[in-house]
Every structure is written in structure tokens, then in C-alpha cells.
């Protein structure tokens, strides 16, 4: 790790605080991840990526910058990675998943704000995330009021550009979003000095679509009983998708899927065939937020899907074929992004259909609705989800929590009681 100290100094990290963060991670990862039984061998790559989370990948970004490229930070699946790549820039999902940076954020932001917002802001404010430090600017969006207003404050500390995401899935909303994509394209061209041509966008779109295809393949492998991979491992792969090199990542996900499909053929799994199969649905789980999956799988369940921004909402919609012109490609990107069934939309009944489809297709025994405290959009939508699933007789457990560990006992009681209920 000593090799990276000069890089971290160059990135103006708060070295002392950053050391504390890096000291906590290996023990936590060992406890939660490496202690799992019968992990796929191909997970070794992802273990390596986590081991180098603030090292090698950051070095790659710095090398890219040294050769004249740009690095763009983002927090949300609505921000199109393909457009950023087409400008010769590298998109990176930024750190937002740990209590570690929350106290820093609370010096500035209101405490009654969701943990994801506080964690992301705290990483910048406390200078403990090398990715935000390495980024030339951050692209925010308007997917919730908390983030929207946080970006205004973040802009005082870091260059921030905000694109608008509409609130309704109407032709007018699509028009607005398409216009926002054109605006983002112009912004990227101005920042990078690269003109986004139809050819460049086609090439970038193909890379990102290949990544999503690999993730969909992984998602489909989880239909098998017994489950060939733990929910923890599958979640980790999706989380890493946000910041790893797109080509290398895709290759490694496909290698993982080869292994999983082999397991399925021989009936090998990570949990007994009769382990309760759980679908997790709700707020995103930014790295290293593994709290709920850990409790569920420690209690004997296996998570077989995430209806989440760190799950199906990230990789499910496919980019539609088009005539390859710049306009047609932008329209296809807009249509794809707007197929994201996020609770920021009203109404958003398609999400309920998604949950039903997943519950059926993945042979789910119960759904856990995961809600970050103060995430009002998902908290309110949970009411509708609960009603819809009750009609289908699909058991649902609603969990509201944040990144702290103080409610682990209560959560475990709820999860255990839920599993007792669905096992009978």
C-alpha cells in the first residue's frame, strides 16, 4: 500500500483519516466475504479489485488523466456512462455506502438526510475518497430532493454539473430528458475537447451494453436452485460495475458466469436447495453497504435478486437498435434510461410489475423491501408494494435502516422471524 501514498498525497486526501478507513476495510471484507463457503473461483478477480479499491484502479484513472483524459464522477444509474465514454472520459460511481464518512457530512448537511447522501457528501468534504478527488467533475441528477439540494452544497467544494431527470414518464418528460442528454453531451465535449461523433457513441454504447449483458447473464444464473452464487457476491459484482474498467470487468463477469453455468449443470450451489430464496427490493446499496445481505445470508437465506439501482435497475433495460445516427442514438439512450423504474417517478407502477416478475421467475419465497431511512420516495412506494404483494400472497418484510450497526440485533430478529414464517 505504501506505493500509493504519494498518489494519495497528490490527490489531497486527508491521509490520517483515509488510513483509518483503509484499516477497517480488510477485516470487514474478510468477515463478510472471504468467510463464505464454496465461493465461485472467479470471485478472486473481484476480491482483488476490492483489495485494490483505493490503489490500482485509482492509479489507472491518474494515468488516464496524465495522458490527457478526463475522469467523471457520478452517483446514479440515470447518468449515461456511454455518453461519458464516447467523450474519451472514464465514468466512476463514487463512494457513498459507509457510515465512516457520515459524521463529516453532518457537520454541514441536515442530520435527517438519507445515509447515501450524507456518505457521498462526507467523502468529498472529509477528503477520504480518492475517486471524487480524482474526478474532474461530478454529474449529479434530480432523482430526489435530498440529492438535488446536496449537489448545490457539493458544488462549493467540487465542480458539479446537474442534469435533470423528469418526474413523470410522459412524452413531455422524454422531451426534457432528451434535451438534458444534449446538454450533457455539450458539457462533456467542452470539458474533454472531444467531439462525440456517431461512431464514437456507437463504440461506447456497445461496450456498456456488453457490460449490462454480462450482468443480465449473471442475474439469470441466479434463477437456479440451488443458487450458484451468494447474494453478497452478486451484489458485490454489480457494485464494482460502477467503477471498474468496462472491458476488463465484462470479461471477468462472463468468466464468472461460465463457472456458474457449470455449477448449475452439476447442481452445485452455495446454499441448500431448500434455503429460503429472497428478493431484495428498494433503495440502492452503494459499496461497501452489505448490511442487509449479510444478515439475510447469515440467517440461512439466499438472496437471488436485487430490484435496485445496484441490481436490475442498473442492467435490465437494453439499448434498442437504431439507425446509428447521433440523434437516433441519443433517443435510444433516453428511452433506455427512462425505462428505469425508479421511485423518483410518479406514478411508477411498472416497478411493482418488475417485483412480481422477479418473484415468479426467480422462485422467490419472500421479498425484503429495503429502505434507507429518510429515503421518502421508496418509503412511500413500499406501501403500494406491500398491498400488491399481499394480493399475490408473496410474503414481504419491510426494513428501514441506515449504515450504522446499532440496529443489527433488531434487524436480525426481524429477518429471523420472517424466515421462520416463510419456512413453515
Amino acid at each position, binding site marked *: 500500500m505504501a506505493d500509493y501514498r504519494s498518489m494519495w498525497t497528490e490527490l489531497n486526501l486527508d491521509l490520517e483519516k483515509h488510513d483509518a478507513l483503509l484499516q477497517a476495510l480488510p477485516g470487514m471484507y474478510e468477515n463478510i466475504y472471504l*468467510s463464505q463457503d464454496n465461493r465461485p473461483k472467479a470471485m478472486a478477480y473481484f476480491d482483488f479489485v476490492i483489495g485494490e479499491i483505493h490503489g490500482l484502479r485509482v492509479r489507472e484513472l491518474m494515468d488516464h488523466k496524465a495522458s490527457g483524459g478526463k475522469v467523471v464522477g457520478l452517483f446514479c444509474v440515470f447518468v449515461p456512462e456511454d455518453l461519458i465514454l464516447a467523450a474519451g472520459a472514464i465514468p466512476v460511481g463514487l463512494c457513498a455506502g459507509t457510515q465512516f464518512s457520515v459524521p463529516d457530512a453532518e457537520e454541514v448537511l441536515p442530520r435527517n438526510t438519507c445515509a447515501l447522501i450524507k456518505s457521498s457528501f462526507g467523502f468529498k468534504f472529509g477528503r477520504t475518497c480518492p475517486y471524487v478527488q480524482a474526478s474532474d467533475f461530478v454529474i449529479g441528477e434530480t432523482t430526489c430532493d435530498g440529492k438535488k439540494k446536496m449537489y448545490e452544497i457539493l458544488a462549493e467544494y467540487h465542480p458539479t454539473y446537474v442534469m435533470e431527470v423528469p418526474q413523470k414518464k410522459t412524452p413531455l418528460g422524454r422531451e426534457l430528458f432528451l434535451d438534458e442528454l444534449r446538454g450533457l453531451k455539450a458539457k462533456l465535449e467542452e470539458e474533454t475537447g472531444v467531439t462525440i461523433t456517431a461512431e464514437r457513441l456507437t463504440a461506447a454504447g456497445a461496450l456498456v451494453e456488453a457490460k449490462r449483458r454480462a450482468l443480465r447473464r449473471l442475474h439469470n444464473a441466479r434463477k437456479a436452485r440451488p443458487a450458484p452464487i451468494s447474494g453478497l457476491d452478486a451484489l458485490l459484482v454489480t457494485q464494482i460495475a460502477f467503477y471498474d474498467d468496462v472491458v476488463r470487468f465484462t470479461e471477468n463477469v462472463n468468466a464468472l458466469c461460465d463457472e456458474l453455468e457449470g455449477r448449475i449443470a452439476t447442481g452445485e450451489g452455495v446454499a441448500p436447495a431448500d434455503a429460503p430464496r429472497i428478493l431484495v427490493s428498494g433503495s440502492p446499496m452503494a459499496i461497501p453497504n452489505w448490511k442487509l445481505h449479510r444478515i439475510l445470508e447469515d*440467517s440461512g437465506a439466499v438472496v437471488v435478486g436485487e430490484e435496485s439501482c445496484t441490481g436490475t435497475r442498473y442492467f435490465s433495460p437494453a439499448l434498442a437498435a437504431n439507425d446509428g445516427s447521433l440523434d437516433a442514438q441519443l433517443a435510444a439512450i433516453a428511452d433506455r434510461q427512462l425505462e428505469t423504474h425508479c421511485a423518483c417517478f410518479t406514478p411508477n407502477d411498472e416497478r411493482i410489475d418488475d417485483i412480481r416478475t422477479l418473484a415468479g421467475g426467480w422462485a422467490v419465497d419472500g421479498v425484503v423491501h429495503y429502505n434507507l431511512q429518510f429515503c421518502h420516495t421508496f418509503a412511500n412506494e413500499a406501501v403500494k408494494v406491500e398491498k400488491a404483494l399481499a394480493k399475490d400472497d408473496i410474503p414481504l418484510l419491510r426494513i428501514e435502516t441506515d449504515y450504522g450497526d446499532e440496529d443489527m440485533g433488531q434487524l436480525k430478529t426481524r429477518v*429471523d*422471524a420472517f424466515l*421462520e414464517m416463510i419456512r413453515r
Partner: protein
Amino acid sequence: MTYAGLDIGSRTIVLVELDEGLKDFVILDTGANPLQRCQALLDGRTYRSVVATGYGRQLAATTFATEVVTEIRAYAVGARHLYSDCRTVIDVGGQDCKVSLLSDTGEVRKFGMNDRCAAGTGRFLEVMARALEMDVGRLGDHGLSARRMAAINSLCTVFAESEVVSLIARGEDSPTIALGLHDAIATRIAGMVRRVGPRERVVFAGGGALNACLRKLLSQKLGVELTVPEQPQIVGALGAALIARNGGCRPNRISQPR
């Protein structure tokens, strides 16, 4: 042949011994080292099997318990044993409040539990009793003696405590405040019960059910009669003991903590 149920709660540890019927029970404070306290309690007693429940059940899982079950299931089994027509169980414990809806055969169909805060729990009453300088056991009767009720707006234990302090400073008498506190907590619990959709018979158990004022207000707010067992605190341990006597729910199905 004696079986034991052990409910290791956040505030009390309850041991129930069962043979043909209820043989004996013991209630202790949990203290700072519940595992040690349980071991001292079990020292010299031998059982065919022991089932543990409650907040500390995982501690027991690695030592002396044959099996662990959640409080939700233990209370359901215990309440159902006492009242075979029970369909709803309300358990107000030390740090949690839980409501379970049972099927006509006694299986847990749905449950609710307070979020990560002490509002609506025994702990809330303890903190408020301290603010009013009285034993928590007397708080209920104290509230029932009130002629008026103070409005307590805050459900957060910390904020409610400061509300109590300002009411005291304003010269409000203590029964009036106590009644307001019970009303606040009963409103909160009633909301949770309604969310689950209660069916009669409703059994109210856990240490909170010892409080007469809470019983009265909760029954009024829900518009149903509440059945309170003679020993409401032991229902969870009784359920655990019954599960032990029935040979467990299903052996080894709840995994051990790593």
C-alpha cells in the same frame, strides 16, 4: 422429563420450566453479562432440552441452548397455548414492541416491530419514570389517578424526556404528565397494531402489559378487549419451553452465527 425455555431480553431474563404443565419460572434482571447470568441460573438444573429466545438468543445458541427461536415465534406459541383462540399478540418488551397476526392454526402470518428507536417500548416508560422520580412499576397507577392529561407531542424518548422536563418546570402535576406519556406510547403502539390488522382475540403480553394505564388506553384506542395473561412477562419463555417440549420447530434450521 423437564424442558426449559429461556427468554434473554434486553431488560430481563426469564426461565420457564415445563413438564406436564408449568413447573416453575424465574425472572432476573439482564445486567451487563447476560451469558454469565444465564449460566448461573442454569447451574445445577438439568433439562431434556433448552430453547432460547429474546435479544440474547444468539449468545445462548453457541453455549447451552438446543435451539433458538425469535421472540415473535416464541410469544405466538406461548400466547396460543394460554388462549387457543388467540389471533393477535402484542408484546411490549424492554426495547422492542412487536405485534404478530396469527393464522387460525396459530402460525405467524404477519408481524410488525418498532424501528430503531425506543418509542413505544418499556424502555420509554423507564426513562419517563426516572424523569418523574418514581419506580416504573408505579407509573401506570400514577397515570390512572390523573384528572387531566398533558399533551406529549414527541415520540422520541430523548425529546419526550425534555418535554417532560419542561412540563415539570411549567408546574404541571406529575399524574397529568404520566397520563400524557402513556397516551403517547399507546397511540404509537396502536398505530403499529392497526398496520398489522388485528383480529380478536388480542393477547397483550411482555413487561409492558403489567402497566394498567397502558392496558386501558391501548384497549380504548384499538376498540377491542385485550387479554392479559396472569404473568405477561413469561409468555415468550413459555413459548420457547413449549417448542423445546415439542422437539423444536425444525432442528438446526436457524444457522449459527459465524
